[in-house]
């Protein structure tokens, strides 16, 4: 499906977990969803945010892999670790700025969202995007997202000094151009200096 891109809009997520269950039905990893649906601040809010793999242009997970197990295909999709190579060291789990890779300890292998490669490579939409009732996860052409959404898509992220550009777009308020996160600000120690 030429021109189709993946868009994640956290403001639309209603926390229904349809994407989790749709993902878990996949035959390649049945019973284990590769999507994260996280509560942002569970103490004060019911807001949730879905996270699929952002498929970085220069994937940190693949760069830190000591076993050469994570590969990026020509169409920009970062694949799950190759089973014969993965040594289950969790380097990628720790390194990914988005916290996407999951260590399957019972399989001794890292698995992550591969944008339903079996489906998207055949021109079908990813499972989560087909079931999301509020289209917080959307797999549509660029023109369609610009017509139907107030928010603006961006794929530039800053994690401290690390600049990350991704294949998957994040919907952000119209006046912003990138998502900048100072990681240190979110660390527990910074907010509890008196301890």
């Amino acid at each position: 499906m030429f021109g189709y891109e993946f868009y994640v809009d956290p403001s639309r997520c209603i926390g229904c977990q349809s994407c989790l269950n749709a993902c878990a039905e996949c035959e390649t990893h049945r019973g284990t969803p590769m999507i994260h649906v996280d509560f942002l601040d569970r103490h004060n809010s019911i807001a949730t945010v879905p996270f699929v793999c952002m498929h970085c242009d220069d994937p940190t997970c693949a760069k830190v892999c000591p076993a050469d197990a994570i590969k990026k295909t020509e169409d920009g999709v970062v694949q799950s670790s190759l089973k014969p190579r993965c040594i289950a060291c969790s380097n990628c789990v720790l390194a990914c700025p988005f916290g996407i890779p999951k260590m399957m300890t019972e399989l001794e292998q890292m698995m992550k969202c591969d944008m339903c490669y079996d489906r998207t490579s055949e021109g079908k939409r990813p499972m989560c995007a087909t079931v999301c009732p509020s289209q917080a996860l959307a797999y549509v052409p660029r023109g369609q997202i610009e017509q139907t959404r107030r928010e603006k898509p961006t794929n530039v992220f800053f994690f401290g000094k690390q600049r990350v550009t991704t294949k998957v777009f994040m919907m952000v308020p119209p006046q912003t151009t990138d998502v900048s996160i100072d990681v240190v600000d979110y660390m527990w120690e910074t907010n509890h200096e008196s301890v």
Partner: protein
Amino acid sequence: MNLFKQVRKEPLWQDEFSIHASDERYVSRRQFTKFLVLTSFGMFVGNVWILMRSLLSRTSVLPEQKICSSSQVPVGGVWLFRYPTEKDPCILIRPDDQTYVAYSQKCTHLSCAVYYAREKNRLECPCHEGYFSVRNGDVLQGPPPRPLPRVMLERRGDNLFAVGMAVGKET
């Protein structure tokens, strides 16, 4: 897959262990040339080694060894012995009064033991019915690819000595 790989400014190890799936199977012209040169060199060295080995092994001399006294073998009888080592069974045949011949007992096909068939006057291998001539060890019929290696005999007084082996050519 890219037809021409872009020259990257990354360290060599990052180029060798690329994160791109398409680079896994990419063989650069330089890598291919290296492979060709190294394999050809390996082949050349192997050939030289085989040549040297065959040149050097020709000089080997087999020991002389007493087999038996000539009167111990009756006419039409055989005498089994081992030559040149304990692992090489041989057979000495006396087809007529004045003739003594000896061959390796291992069939040249699959190393079964050959025996002397007196009434047919030939050496027979029972495994696949390979027959050998008593006169010179040539293959008369059957699957053996070469004649039986012949033990060179020498008569010293009453005793028979083995003094060497003559290997027949492949037919």
